[in-house]
């Protein structure tokens, strides 16, 4: 398949269990998933379906019980994959569900957004050379997500609304121009009115960095419809349906997908 030439991240035959021998619970069963450069993949499913575990495995934050994760065609698992895992971490950004838990409450927006730039290894081409350059990149990222830098760079999370804080978290995730952006339920904790601004911020980030792949986890099809190119539906740890956004939303095959579509209408 030609689209596979462009695959940036791939999970092959991923299974995952938690617990000890006696309390073992399997949450993912032989899942195959990939995302291409420039593509936005939505992983949808209800609470407890395994979607967050899957995306954590894809970003190397969790080890699969079986299966392999490939970043740019090379495995990130085990000792042999260490260098590739490090590369994946350097080239990915994450936006979590609740910005007030993911942003350090003692840091200003400017400091939080600058942090990924300061953590890049010295030889990385994306690394900013001095404070002035870092300041310019931070201001640019804040501007991109719709937060005027002059107003927000010195603000603390407690002085922001949920939507503003989440846009700071997006700025932090995209400031180093990552190749992969994972957004795990980025709108669940945010007011509906502010969700539109989060969508706009994600769209602006894509426009700026068209090769960036986005993986968005959501149970909200209204959100997914506005941003995703392709959808993977997870139910009880298995992929039950996948296809382009139009395919899955217009001609859903599985009962579970149909049910999700029914409740997402106004």
């Amino acid at each position, binding site marked *: 398949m030609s689209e596979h030439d462009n695959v940036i991240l791939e999970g092959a035959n991923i299974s995952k269990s938690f617990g000890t021998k006696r309390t073992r619970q399997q949450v993912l069963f032989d899942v195959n998933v990939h995302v291409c450069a420039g593509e936005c993949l939505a992983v949808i499913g209800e*609470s407890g379906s395994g979607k967050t575990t899957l995306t954590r495995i894809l970003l190397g934050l969790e080890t699969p019980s079986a299966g392999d994760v490939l970043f740019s065609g090379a495995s990130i698992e085990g000792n042999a994959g260490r260098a590739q895992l490090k590369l994946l971490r350097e080239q990915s950004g994450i936006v979590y569900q609740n910005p007030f838990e993911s942003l350090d409450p003692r840091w200003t927006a400017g400091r939080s957004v600058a942090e990924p730039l300061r953590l890049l290894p010295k030889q990385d081409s994306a690394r900013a050379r001095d404070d002035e350059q870092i300041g310019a990149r931070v201001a640019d990222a804040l501007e991109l997500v719709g937060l005027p830098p002059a107003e927000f760079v010195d603000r603390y999370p407690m002085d922001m609304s949920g939507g503003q804080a989440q846009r700071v978290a997006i700025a932090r995730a995209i400031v180093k121009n990552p190749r992969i952006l994972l957004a795990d339920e980025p709108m669940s904790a945010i*007011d509906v009115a502010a*969700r539109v601004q989060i969508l706009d911020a994600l769209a602006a980030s894509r426009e700026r960095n068209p090769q960036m792949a986005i993986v968005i986890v959501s149970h909200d*099809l209204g959100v997914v419809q506005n941003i995703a190119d392709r959808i993977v539906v997870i139910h009880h740890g298995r992929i039950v349906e996948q296809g382009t956004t139009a395919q899955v939303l217009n001609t859903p095959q599985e009962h579970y997908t149909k049910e999700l579509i029914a409740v997402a209408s106004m």
Partner: protein
Amino acid sequence: MSVTLSNVNISIASKPIVHNISMEIRDGQRVGLIGSSGSGKSMIARAIMGLLPQQASLSGTISVNGTQVVGMSDNELANLRGAAMGMVFQNPATSLNPLLRVREQIELPLKLHYDLPSDDRAARVEAMARKVGLPAELLGRFPHQLSGGQQQRVGIATALITSPRLIIADEPTTALDSITQRQIIDLLVSLVDEAHASMLFITHDFSVLAHATQYCYVLGDGEIIERGRTAQLLDAPQHDYTKTLVHAAQTLSLHTDTRSAAHTEGAHNERA
């Protein structure tokens, strides 16, 4: 049961939270209160329940079935709550007592407010659990052993066990996934209607209000900026802030070719 708020002001540590609010919830009516986080929605609910934080100051009139609530003693308020009002909270994981089994949790309001023999209480708890769709085997479990949707069903059963005439639901579905959200809203609406009770439903999402309420108030910066029938506000919002909320709900609602077919099928399955 009817509730009337007239010129209600609430401030916390001398910071004004809501200003000059007047609202009415008529007998048997489902009323929505919509606004962004921090607009003061929850404080209005707490004021009606007499559950404002200690440092809050309240002025104006809140009349519950003709009885003025503002200025009541804690004991009088507790009796009124037990007999007449029930509240469903946003996050069932934190609103349920983690040390009580489901059965004890649902039974507690009966124990506190009514003098009933334990057999009678047990029978009522089991009947209420059936009503909210909780299987009998879950009654012996603790909250952490339940899913979010099951926990919220326990929250609803606890709020309804004393057959209150007013239910206040403060963002009861925000912490749940979309299918569970719809199930919980449908459950609340059917139980409230069946009991001919009144409901105040608080949310930030117009698409939720469309399903749950007949009438609604829009709260912006601590003031009521628009009111009307929910369907009418959705069709023709007047105030800029209401327009933003309606626009957001429309942008984020799904538009597909199969929507109506899928919806019909979903409704059919529910009835089955």
